[in-house]
């Protein structure tokens, strides 16, 4: 094996393995490319669902929707996650990366697989949605591409584990791994389960598409497929929570309020988060209510407990750090004086708030066994997950990119004044997408549906007029989100390929001028810590959560009795 070459980061003093750096770059760039492609498909889908615009013909709509789901949900997110895994292991642990050749092979498999599946979709014979529920059958190479992609990503996870082992053996760190790396470890563990489930179900399905297997049971498929489909969302959650902690640390020098509690919250994720795959099977035949209730609740909501812990400790850590710097007036001075013009901060904070209020609450409510009857496969579902995976994960990844560009790509962020506004525009658009789709869903509007006017159906039917209004607003929100996404792409491409090199030490920190390395040395000795602002925030969150939860039980009680 060739010798590892390092550079020393002028800002952090960390020793950076150049092959790790190259791998992070490659995976992040691939991620952004697929975000661009997938985002364009998303816009075209939203404009088609805007009744007054109705952009695409039906066959193109279903094709575009399939491509949108694949490109953003699998390719953008998982490529970026692999970049995060390498960053949180090799870079943060000050270590060389394990088996760089394997990591490149993983990258090649993922890229090849992603392209093959995209080609399959664009050829038109695989408009089966990214869920590809049998007996609906796609072209053979649709499944083959996904399998290659999953295997590649799985190898990437093992490179991460290998790097942890190397760093420990070579003693590149003292004691325990950093909390952010622990969050990445959580993501990687969930990813192993996810990708293995994906391979287990997609391989027989591929053989079925070739004709070597005669039948795929649709229920069995759905059970195992969602072990991948939903757990991959739990990779996202773990990864973006790790990123929240990372950005809080990099911008404020924030230290976790309690290592013990934050790590235990991640442990709850490792143990229970993946059970929520059952969210997608709540109105399926053949599974008992015992199975549904236990799994959909992540074993008595223990993983929700984990998220609520992070929901307090991330803003709490920032508040404590800001207060330690002297922003001590009133309840919210620490927040008012936060660097709102720094896209890494604004993106991260919007991600935190919107993930909690839009994605988190709606997810738990919709994941309630009986309440799901009113929401399954309506637009409420995409409304919910645009709150989680777009407002939460995607925005957090964008925010992180604004730090990776100077630190890993060693370039200045191009168009700084554009970058300042980018998270706000994207966040606003996505909040709209999420809320308007949820609204339409409560009115019954179906997801994955080309024509809510039902012009060529055998019967007449109209959704309530408000639904049309909401779909129009949704289209406008989509335009805002797409513009925000485009701004991000333009900024990243310009910075990465044509940006001004960064040679010296840079300042990441908040406007108070204290640079990152002057980390708040210590606080949080249990007696002195004060975080009143955070307590107000979580109090508002909790109230909204409880109210919304019981309102939905009230709605449910008005539905036809059934048992």
């Amino acid at each position, binding site marked *: 094996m060739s010798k590892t070459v390092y550079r020393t980061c002028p800002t952090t003093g960390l020793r950076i393995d150049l092959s790790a750096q190259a791998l992070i770059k490659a995976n992040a760039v691939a991620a952004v490319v697929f975000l661009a492609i997938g985002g364009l498909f998303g816009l075209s889908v939203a404009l088609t669902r805007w009744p007054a615009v109705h952009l695409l013909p039906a066959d193109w709509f279903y094709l575009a929707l399939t491509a949108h789901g694949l490109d953003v949900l699998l390719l953008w997110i998982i490529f970026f996650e692999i970049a995060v895994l390498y960053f949180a292991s090799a870079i943060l642990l000050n270590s060389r990366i394990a088996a760089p050749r394997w990591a490149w092979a993983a990258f090649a498999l993922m890229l090849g697989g992603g392209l093959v599946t995209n080609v399959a979709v664009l050829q038109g014979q695989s408009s089966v949605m990214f869920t590809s529920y049998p007996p609906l059958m796609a072209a053979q190479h649709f499944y083959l591409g996904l399998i290659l992609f999953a295997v590649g990503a799985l190898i990437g996870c093992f490179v991460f584990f290998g790097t942890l082992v190397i760093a420990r053996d070579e003693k590149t760190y003292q004691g325990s791994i950093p909390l952010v790396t622990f969050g990445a470890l959580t993501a990687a563990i969930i990813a192993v389960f996810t990708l293995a489930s994906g391979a287990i179900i997609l391989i027989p399905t591929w053989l079925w598409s070739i004709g070597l297997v005669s039948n795929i049971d649709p229920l069995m498929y759905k059970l195992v497929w969602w072990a991948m489909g939903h757990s991959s969302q739990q990779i996202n959650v773990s990864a973006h929570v790790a990123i929240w902690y990372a950005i809080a640390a990099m911008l404020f020098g924030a230290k976790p309020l309690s290592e013990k509690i*934050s790590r235990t919250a991640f442990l709850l994720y490792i143990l229970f988060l993946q059970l929520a795959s059952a969210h997608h099977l*709540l109105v399926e035949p053949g599974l008992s209510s015992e199975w549904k209730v236990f799994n959909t609740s992540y074993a008595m909501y223990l993983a929700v407990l984990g998220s609520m812990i992070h929901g307090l400790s991330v803003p709490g850590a920032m508040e404590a750090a800001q207060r330690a710097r002297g922003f001590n007036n009133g309840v919210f001075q620490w927040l008012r004086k936060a660097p709102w013009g720094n896209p890494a901060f604004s993106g991260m904070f919007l991600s935190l708030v919107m993930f909690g209020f839009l994605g988190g609450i709606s997810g738990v409510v919709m994941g309630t066994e009986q309440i799901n009857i009113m929401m*399954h496969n309506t637009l409420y579902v995409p409304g919910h997950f645009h709150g989680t995976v777009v407002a939460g994960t995607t925005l957090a990844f964008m925010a992180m990119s604004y730090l990776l560009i100077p630190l890993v790509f060693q370039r200045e962020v191009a168009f700084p004044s554009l970058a300042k506004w980018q998270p706000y525009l994207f966040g606003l658009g996505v909040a709209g997408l999420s809320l308007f789709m949820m609204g339409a869903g409560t009115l019954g509007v179906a997801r994955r549906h080309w024509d809510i006017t039902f012009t060529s*159906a055998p019967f007449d039917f109209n959704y309530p007029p408000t639904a049309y209004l909401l779909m129009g607003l949704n289209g406008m929100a989509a335009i805002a989100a797409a513009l925000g996404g485009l701004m991000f792409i333009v900024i990243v491409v310009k910075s990465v390929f044509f940006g001004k090199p960064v040679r010296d030490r840079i300042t990441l920190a908040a406007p108070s001028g204290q640079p990152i390395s002057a980390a708040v040395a210590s606080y949080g000795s249990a007696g002195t810590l004060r975080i009143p602002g955070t307590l107000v925030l979580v109090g508002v969150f909790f109230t909204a959560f409880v109210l919304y939860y019981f309102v939905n039980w009230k709605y449910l009680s008005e539905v036809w*009795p059934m048992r």
Partner: protein
Amino acid sequence: MAITSPSTRLWWNEPAHRSELIWIALAFVWGLVMFFMMIYWHATGAQNLANETYRTTPNAYYAKVERNVADWQVRELNGLPVIKPPAGADVYLLGRMWLWYPVLELERGQTYRLHLSSLDLQHGFSLQPININVQVHPGYDHVLTVTPDRSGEYTIVCNEFCGLGHHTMLGKIFVVDR
């Protein structure tokens, strides 16, 4: 910092702040409330999805649907039979590309055993405007025991993608007063 190793070696022994502990206790209790709410609703609520499911085949299921139509057809609507089953009956409804078959006429306040299955792909039974949504699988016969409690015209939209005609797949259920 969160991006560096914990500064205290024995971080597990560091005391946690009271406000964090209170929040954890609150969140934990809230989780229990939500968990037991589902169980409570099974015991006392009126809207719970049935667990009654049987394995079947498209042919066997279709034969039952046809028997329903032969026994209970009362009229036709847009070329589809309308059946009016007696209260308490086993009513077989099928989804196929791109049709819900047959049209049902039910009486308000009566209880029916409504069977759902598909002859081909998965479909989504989405009853509007009350918004009841149930997934329909080929090869499985899912039995819901329903009691329509308001009269009117209800539409079954398909809300699972089932091929190019998916958005034309509508069915009807009429609920009439006794």
